[in-house]
């Protein structure tokens, strides 16, 4: 019971699935022997501990071989480094993990939960002293999109049961699980969110545009859950492979300017900042971990990507097979693009707070380079990507928006692949949009505009002085 998860699990794994893994590893080794026989003996030991036999071979940069324990700790290490060096999770946070059922978000969930367990242990150990840090909270969100991708009722119920089981099995503290249908992005007053949502998606003719619009709505939905339940961070399981696909897809869609915003560790342009702690992990590694630790995955909702996104992911997959570090190269190249000022977790303004000081003491401080670039003028109301040169920035002087004005405020990519061309269908499309998107068009991304002019604002309490 009290035993620290990793140790005993690895033992169990060797008993159960050891044979299989060993078979595949010998196969790979045979290939190596042909290549250079002299090093045969060294090839079989784990690169990290140099003691145990390596059973796991990863691609990625250089390609490595690990024993199960080292593999696990290496992967967790990447996650932890990302979290600590970008201040993704602080002790006072309440973190919402977006769980899709797939391997990436499954591992994200696992790791966040492990981290919570560790900080709980720290808390318990130092509880007597008053300086101890609180333990951050964790919640899980699952967005139910079955009204758009119908699956059978039994499948759905089984999947939901699985998700509940996964979440309830996470130690130590109970985690709140939010299973929310995507139609909830419409305010509760409008009763028939489901119809409106279907209509909205159906007015989009481009297949890729449909997919992208849906993913924007998913983010909207996650943000809504986070806001309503008092979460302070949103954790996504986006891994290197996914991000590499996004780099190429965004390039192909003409989103070169806004691309840099989407692929950083942190993205605070949203109401609730979004963090990507698995940015440095390959999908292959995440898959290995899932099978190694028998992490349950929910397959029922696996989305098949079509259009440009599908084409790009199969292209990247092919490239990755040819050269196992290709995805890393793509993400590294795109990582050199200049990020936006919102691509870091904003400093919390709790100077007098002991907790903050304590967390500063505890956390290793990394020298994060300040991002010296101007914030963009505006954001696309549909995809929230920054827009460089806004022709229509003055369009919304009064608080009225029309379909035309709305269309003009969107980024060129959304204009092309999401907005309908004909005026009449554009009006329809506009009428089906959730209120929050219309708001965004009307007010711009208020959060950032507010932050830009913060120094000039007079706060209420300052008034009296």
């Amino acid at each position, binding site marked *: 019971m009290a035993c620290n998860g990793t140790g005993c699990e690895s033992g169990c794994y060797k008993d159960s699935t050891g044979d299989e893994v060993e078979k595949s590893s010998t196969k790979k080794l045979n290939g190596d022997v042909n290549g250079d026989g002299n090093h045969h003996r060294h090839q079989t030991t784990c690169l990290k501990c140099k003691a145990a036999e390596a059973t796991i071979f990863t691609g990625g940069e250089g390609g490595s071989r690990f024993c199960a324990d080292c593999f696990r700790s290496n992967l967790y290490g990447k996650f932890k480094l990302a979290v600590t060096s970008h201040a993704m999770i602080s002790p006072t946070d309440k973190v919402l993990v977006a769980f899709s059922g797939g391997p990436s978000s499954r591992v994200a969930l696992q790791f966040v939960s492990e981290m919570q367990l560790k900080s709980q242990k720290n808390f318990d150990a130092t509880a007597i002293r008053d300086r101890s840090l609180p333990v951050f909270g964790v919640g899980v969100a699952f967005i139910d999109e079955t009204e758009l991708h119908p699956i059978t009722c039994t499948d759905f119920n089984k999947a939901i049961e699985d998700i509940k089981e996964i979440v309830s099995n996470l130690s130590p503290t109970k985690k709140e699980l939010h299973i929310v249908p995507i139609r909830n992005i419409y305010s509760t007053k409008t009763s028939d969110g489901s119809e409106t949502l279907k209509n909205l998606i159906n007015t989009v003719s481009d297949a890729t545009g449909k997919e992208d619009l849906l993913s924007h709505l998913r983010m909207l939905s996650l943000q809504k859950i986070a806001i309503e339940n008092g979460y302070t961070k949103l954790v996504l399981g986006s891994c290197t492979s996914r991000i590499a696909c996004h780099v*190429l897809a965004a390039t192909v869609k*003409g989103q070169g300017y806004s691309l*840099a915003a989407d692929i950083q560790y942190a993205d605070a342009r949203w109401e609730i900042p979004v963090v990507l702690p698995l940015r440095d992990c390959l999908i292959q590694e995440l898959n290995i971990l899932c099978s190694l630790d028998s992490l349950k995955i929910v397959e029922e909702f696996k989305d098949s990507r079509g259009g440009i996104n599908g084409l790009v992911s199969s292209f990247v997959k092919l490239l990755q097979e040819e050269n196992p570090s290709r995805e890393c190269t793509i993400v590294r190249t795109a990582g050199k693009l200049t990020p936006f000022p919102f691509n870091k977790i904003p400093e919390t303004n709790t100077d007098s707070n002991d907790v903050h000081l304590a967390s500063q003491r505890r956390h290793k401080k990394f020298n994060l380079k300040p991002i010296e670039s101007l914030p963009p003028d505006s954001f696309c109301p549909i995809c929230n990507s920054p827009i460089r040169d806004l022709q229509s920035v003055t369009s919304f002087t009064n608080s009225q928006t029309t379909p035309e004005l709305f269309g003009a405020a969107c980024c060129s990519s959304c204009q092309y692949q999401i907005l309908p061309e004909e005026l009449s269908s554009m009006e329809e499309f506009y009428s089906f949009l959730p209120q929050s998107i219309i708001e965004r068009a009307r007010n711009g991304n208020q959060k950032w505009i507010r932050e830009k002019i913060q120094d000039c604002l007079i706060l209420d309490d300052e008034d009296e002085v």
Partner: protein
Amino acid sequence: MDGAHGGEKTKSRLCSICNQRRPALKRPKTLQQICRECFYVVFEEEIHSVIVNNKLFKPGERIAIGASGGKDSTVLAYVMSELNRRHNYGLDLFLLSVDEGITGYRDDSLETVKRNEIQYGLPLKVVSYKDLYGWTMDEIVKMIGLKNNCTFCGVFRRQALDRGAALLKVDKLVTGHNADDIAETVLLNILRGDIARLSRCTSIITGEDGPIPRCKPFKYTYEKEIFIKDLERIRPRAILDIIKSGEDFRIATSTKMPEQGTCQRCGYISSQKWCKACVLLEGLNRGLPKLGIGRTRGVNRKDDQHNDAKNIQSKPCGSLDF
């Protein structure tokens, strides 16, 4: 009315620009159905505005048109001569072709280029590998066999246009690189991780600091290639969107390019002491054709080999005043 084409569509069957003639093609760029006459007009005017907006040329300049005999460069030759006349650019135009010296390979295309010479009244200069490097590709293949000879051909061709342009004493070189080529380069640079080249590969004039700037008036014009081809099938506009992305990438202006030097031997741009062509030539001339192909060997890495270089008498590559 037009029985052969089914009644219901007759209304839309008119050129979407002039609304008079029957459309002859669907432009991949815009998906507009337009007639032959309008296509010429739009196409040529688009190229014209690219040239004007980017100030590609100044009056009185001598311009070499890289001509392979293929469709891109043939169209380029036509459009350049036509626009030069129509809009009084005041340019001295030349056709410049490279002959690799492969029996039966260039003959047809060189014929095409010669026809272009007459048709558009543009003087033609054919530079051969033999003239430039002292070796034809046939001779090179005889020397090194069928493996690796692409390395030679590729490296030599890269320089051949520049060398030919230097011989013609032109101010600029125009090539038929089109939107697909550039889109492909953008993607390749992302896949390769080359941020520096990514930052400049979409610019319409390259090599401005080098000896002879190259211009690509067809930057926004179309063509094809595998992944790109698939993309285009799903969404023709993707090609232009890739270029747009390439132009919009937020790349810090301080991004360092690999330092550009000149080859100590021939004066061509080179990041190493000797340019690749000179290294390869050195190998050929010394009877060590593998020099410069593998990873570990090479003149640039071994300074002491320098002395031997003087002994090479045969077939030197001419040094040029770039």
